């Protein structure tokens, strides 16, 4: 999660690398409780997230998106 980009930066990076028709959609909030389901987030990190991230942001620390794009034919 720490390597995730902002949505706009992610879309721009895809475009910059030569893709066309970039589309971003299906946004799903990814909060602390959801992160806790994943074994890659250890209990100390989940505790750190609960401690450091303001309560109003804990339900959507990140947002999972679908990004679609096309490699131009030409």
């Amino acid at each position, binding site marked *: *999660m720490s390597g995730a980009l902002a949505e706009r930066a992610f879309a721009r990076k895809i475009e910059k*690398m030569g893709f066309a028709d970039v589309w971003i959609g299906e946004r799903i909030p990814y909060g602390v409780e959801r992160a806790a*389901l994943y074994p890659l987030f250890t209990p100390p990190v989940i505790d750190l997230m609960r401690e450091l991230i303001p309560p109003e942001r804990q339900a959507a620390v990140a947002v999972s998106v679908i990004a679609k794009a096309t490699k131009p034919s030409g």
Partner: protein
Amino acid sequence: MTEDLMFQDQIKDVVREAYSHIETGAGRLAAQQLYLDAELASLPPGAVDWALGVGNPVRHAELRRGEVVLDVGSGGGIDTILAARAVGSSGRAIGLDLLREMGERAERHAKEAGVEAWTEFVTGEMEQIPLPDACIDVVISNGVINLSPRKSRVLAEIRRVLKPGGRLCVADLTVNDELPTELQTSDAAWAG
């Protein structure tokens, strides 16, 4: 900005280490939030248990019979198996994962799902995909690109292996507010 806080090689090692030590994926509870009940019911239990993604890229990829699909960061194989079913035996599904043991696990799941004849798993890095140029119709990926400290390189590699007119369809995490520094430098927060 986060790339400044940990060196690229350090991040890569952290991710490799974290994934090689986990004993299961996020499991059925997490998968139920991303996949249809019918999809989950049709999959080998191991593939569901080892799901580690953050979305359902196959649902959005508009895969067609006969297409060749590459799943970047295939993990336990859940999306590779779903993609293999969508393209059918006239197509091909290739899973790429950093860890050989993950590929072996996914191979077992693909066999249980009955798609092994047109599915293969290769070991390699997403920053250096071990496939020739322009051999793939569709690249899918699920919660993996955010793990790379070299995202431009990953996208360049995906573009290289796609055929002209080929499609990219990935699920990934984005953040709209910067994470606290303690989390940006946390190994586990990079791997998760």
